[in-house]
């Protein structure tokens, strides 16, 4: 495992909700991608899952039907190996994201948002939404604030805003209190994966008009 340069990690609450399996799909995707890139959060997740194992051990028992073992063995006999593990090409997109895009960055079906910014909404359940953002080097995303929770993971390039600099693997959390203007660094285009449980609110008049069209 190569040491990572990640400075902005997942919160404990997000990791616990993910390990318990209660995080909405869109946020789970961001978590899965960050954990794929971050040995530190992966180990933290393992620790929380070990707690889940401890909770399972302490759970009271509920009797199964008389034929349960035989039925399970029959399932195994029918399909001893289950579905084979998928294989992935090496790319800047971690494998959980490749599942949604059908490959790496070149497989994304981008839609223009304006000012060179592009996005692609990913198919997740409706409890929250996930999208990829493409921000050309040196470009700013309009000022916006957030209704609910937003998590943004950098996959390529880097951006800076009022909070800090965010590069590959870093996650920025946004909520009601954060209004920011992320600017992609000069030199490399920036690709981010963002999940939110509420529509983004843009401050500028044009982005606000665009909002219903681009569906964020």
């Amino acid at each position, binding site marked *: 495992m190569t040491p990572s340069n990640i400075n902005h990690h997942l919160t*404990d609450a997000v990791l616990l909700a993910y390990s318990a399996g209660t995080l909405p799909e869109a946020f789970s995707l961001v978590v899965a991608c960050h954990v794929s890139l971050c040995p530190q959060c992966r180990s933290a997740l393992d620790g929380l899952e070990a707690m889940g194992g401890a909770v399972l051990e302490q759970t009271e028992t509920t009797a199964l039907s008389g034929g349960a073992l035989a039925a399970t063995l029959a399932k195994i006999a029918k399909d001893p190996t289950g579905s084979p593990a998928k294989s992935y090409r090496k790319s800047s997109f971690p494998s959980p994201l490749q599942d949604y895009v059908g490959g790496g960055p070149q497989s994304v079906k981008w839609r223009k948002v304006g000012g060179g910014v592009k996005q692609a909404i990913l198919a997740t359940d409706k409890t929250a939404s996930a999208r990829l953002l493409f921000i050309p080097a040196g470009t700013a995303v309009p000022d916006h604030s957030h209704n609910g929770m937003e998590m943004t993971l950098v996959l390529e390039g880097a951006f800076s805003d009022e909070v800090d600099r965010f590069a590959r693997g870093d996650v920025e959390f946004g909520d009601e209190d954060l209004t920011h203007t992320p600017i992609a660094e000069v030199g490399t285009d920036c690709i981010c994966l963002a999940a939110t449980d509420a529509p983004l609110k843009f401050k500028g008049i044009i982005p606000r008009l665009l909002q219903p069209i681009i569906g964020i």
Partner: protein
Amino acid sequence: MTQPSACAFVPERAESSVYTRGEAIVKRPEEPKPRSDEWTLCLLRVRDTQDQAAFVQLFNHFAPRIKSYLMKGGGSDTLAEEATQEALATVWQKASLFSPVQASASTWIFTIARNKNIDAIRKQKRPEPEELDWIGDKEDDASVALETSQEESGLRLAVSKLPQAQRTLIERAFYGEMSHSEIAAETQIPLGTIKSRIRLALERIRHDLAREK
């Protein structure tokens, strides 16, 4: 499990030590020496030799717990029963992916039950992190299993010593009774302690085993 099991690691009996302090003879309470948990050894047998008897032991221990867990997650008796059978079938099917470097059997089986809860009971999806390739030597697995089990039993001990209210919160979180925002608002869950306790240990174990990818 009170009966000797096929997978039970023969535990070294810890001897009570007797020492004197002044006049008094103090007998220390017997502390069992750490041992690999029998479920991890069962799972390694399923993985390495497709041992059916070991699988039946795992089934008898875990299936009734998984069924309760799935019913807490909102499954009816019928649905939870079916999903439990599927979860146990997955234990067999995916056993080749089990690595004691990453988890004990109960932790690994918990993740399978959790995923079953999401896809079969709640009908949702859960993206999984990229798999790490552990190039570790299978010969080492028994000793690695011992190390992982020790770390996890240390963690469990730490959890068992928490105040009841905190333990209840952890259970509620894992039984799916708390949303992310409820967890975030709850300052009583001693996440930092729990996370760092096992994290450091696991990082150390892995550091020894993992080669540069």
